[in-house]
């Protein structure tokens, strides 16, 4: 029984899921009271997540957890709460509000199991639990054709990706004869078949992370989905994938670091460059954020390519920063989109005159995404690049630095449009509800605080070092 505390995060989410189902089955409650209750539940879930975390293994060591994983799960919990707060306007008007929460909690549950998985079977099941409900969520704007188109592109590409991933898994199984990560890492040798399996596995991961040769679905899905789902996809789903990437591929495929390094190198360079070049020419703000998130993945891969504790810690820290900054940007885009219904960048011209608060929020978020000090984004990128530089490949670091300059251009283009450009018909002024204001203030506080205070990074670095020494790899 005492072991069950290891499953705490997952059990809490399962309980939430059941409560949502019961609330849906019970007597009709209005959307606003459902939203209040679900926000309160998500907040409780988030707070409990911080207490009583232990490390250990369960279910014939198919499931493992440690302080680092607990921290990562807490970050994702917090992100879900922020999404629910910041998109309350859209959610309030949706007729299927309870289903939205059921699906989104189900995907989060999948991500938690994925982070904690210690066996390829659990990993695969968790991955599918994390992606299948997401496709349903993408098509959640039921009356919009674009939304169901996004859902279809999502399910097709994720099914294809999991097919490729499974081929990789089955070849790894064929080479090693086991599905457990612990035994696998000692049995893997870099022969040709394993290299091929690794490439397939990497391709499957790259699809989910939208690393460049496999990024084509990203922009379409991000544009068509409702903003709440887009921010979930780009922040939480991607964050969970990065966590798994560092823990699984780092530790299981340790003997194959050289091949991994080549793959990550190519992926990082292509993602940064192509993501940036396409982001420059976008007109729709969601599409723009999609390409900017592809570019950000390139930077994350640069950090991961260092293959060190610092690399894993800086990737985790970057996700924390990314949760705050991307969530703030998406919160503004979502509020404007659901209140006014306008989504192009040109619409944001003259935004400062009508909505000074929102434009400062968007500006700070974009500064953080671009990596301008004193926002947290600067340190996020700085740690990533210095972790990547540990390997001594300065070509990669130079390309990353050049790409940061390119990205400044297009992030500041929006800031310029908001603050300096004139517009005859600017977006009207938007009244913020309490929930939206709370979400935005938390995001901005997160960006600024983790930019000037080194506490979060030290906590993460400490737990990464500890986690990598505890797990029996």
């Amino acid at each position: 029984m005492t072991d069950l505390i290891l499953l705490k995060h997952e059990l809490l989410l399962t309980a939430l899921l059941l409560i949502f189902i019961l609330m849906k089955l019970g007597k009709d409650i209005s959307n606003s009271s459902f939203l209040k209750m679900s926000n309160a539940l998500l907040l409780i879930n988030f707070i409990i997540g911080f207490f009583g975390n232990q490390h250990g293994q369960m279910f014939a060591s198919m499931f493992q957890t440690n302080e680092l994983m607990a921290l990562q799960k807490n970050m994702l919990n917090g992100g879900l709460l922020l999404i629910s707060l910041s998109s309350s306007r859209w959610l309030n008007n949706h007729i299927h509000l309870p289903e939205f929460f059921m699906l989104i909690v189900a995907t989060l549950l999948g991500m938690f199991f994925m982070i904690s998985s210690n066996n390829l079977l659990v990993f695969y099941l968790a991955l599918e639990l994390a992606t299948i409900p997401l496709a349903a969520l993408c098509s959640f704007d039921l009356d919009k054709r674009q939304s169901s188109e996004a859902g279809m592109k999502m399910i097709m590409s994720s099914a294809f990706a999991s097919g490729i991933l499974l081929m990789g898994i089955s070849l790894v199984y064929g080479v090693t004869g086991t599905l457990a990560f612990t035994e696998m890492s000692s049995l893997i040798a870099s022969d040709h078949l394993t290299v091929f399996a690794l490439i397939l596995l990497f391709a499957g991961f790259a699809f989910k992370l939208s690393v460049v040769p496999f990024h084509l679905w990203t922009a379409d899905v991000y544009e068509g989905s409702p903003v709440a789902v887009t921010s979930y996809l780009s922040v939480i789903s991607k964050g969970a994938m990065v966590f798994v990437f560092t823990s699984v591929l780092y530790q299981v495929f340790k003997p194959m670091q050289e091949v991994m390094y080549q793959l990550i190198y190519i992926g990082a360079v292509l993602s940064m460059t192509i993501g940036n070049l396409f982001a420059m020419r976008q007109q729709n703000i969601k599409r723009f954020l999609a390409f900017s998130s592809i570019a950000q993945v390139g930077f994350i891969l640069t950090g991961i390519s260092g293959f060190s504790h610092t690399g894993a810690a800086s990737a985790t820290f970057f996700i924390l920063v990314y949760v705050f900054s991307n969530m703030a940007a998406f919160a503004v885009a979502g509020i404007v989109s659901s209140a006014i219904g306008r989504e192009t960048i040109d619409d944001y011209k003259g935004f400062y005159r009508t909505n000074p608060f929102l434009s400062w929020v968007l500006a700070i978020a974009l500064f953080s995404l671009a990596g301008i000090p004193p926002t947290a984004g600067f340190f996020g990128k700085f740690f990533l690049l210095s972790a990547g530089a540990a390997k001594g490949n300065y070509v990669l670091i130079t390309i990353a630095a050049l790409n940061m300059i390119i990205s400044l251009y297009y992030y500041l283009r929006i800031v310029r449009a908001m603050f300096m450009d004139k517009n005859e018909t600017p977006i009207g002024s938007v009244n913020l509800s309490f929930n939206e204001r709370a979400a935005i203030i938390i995001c901005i506080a997160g960006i600024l605080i983790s930019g000037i205070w080194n506490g979060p990074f030290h906590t993460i670095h400490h737990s990464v070092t500890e986690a990598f020494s505890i797990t029996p790899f």
Partner: protein
Amino acid sequence: MNILQTIPLNHYIMLSALLFSIGAMGVLLRRNAIILLMCVELMLNAVNLLFAAFSVHHADGGGQVMVIFIMTVAAAEVAVGLAIIVMMFRKAGTTDINLFDTLKW
């Protein structure tokens, strides 16, 4: 059982690689959304065959457990996929993915 085990492992690997490639090419080349889902199923079944073969080769049950779970998950995936295709068909009146082009750069 004995006859199956006399077939060398390489044959299984080649067959499933072939099936997998057919499925993957189908996903890339065919334009009907329902056929796309079928091709994905073909890819997954190729993987299943490989898992079963490796499972016998290593005398380890894990691979066969994996096969059962893959089939279950594939069914769930197709259920959601078909639901979305139905929704798309209601709006666009076709399942040809070339016509689903309202989202484009």
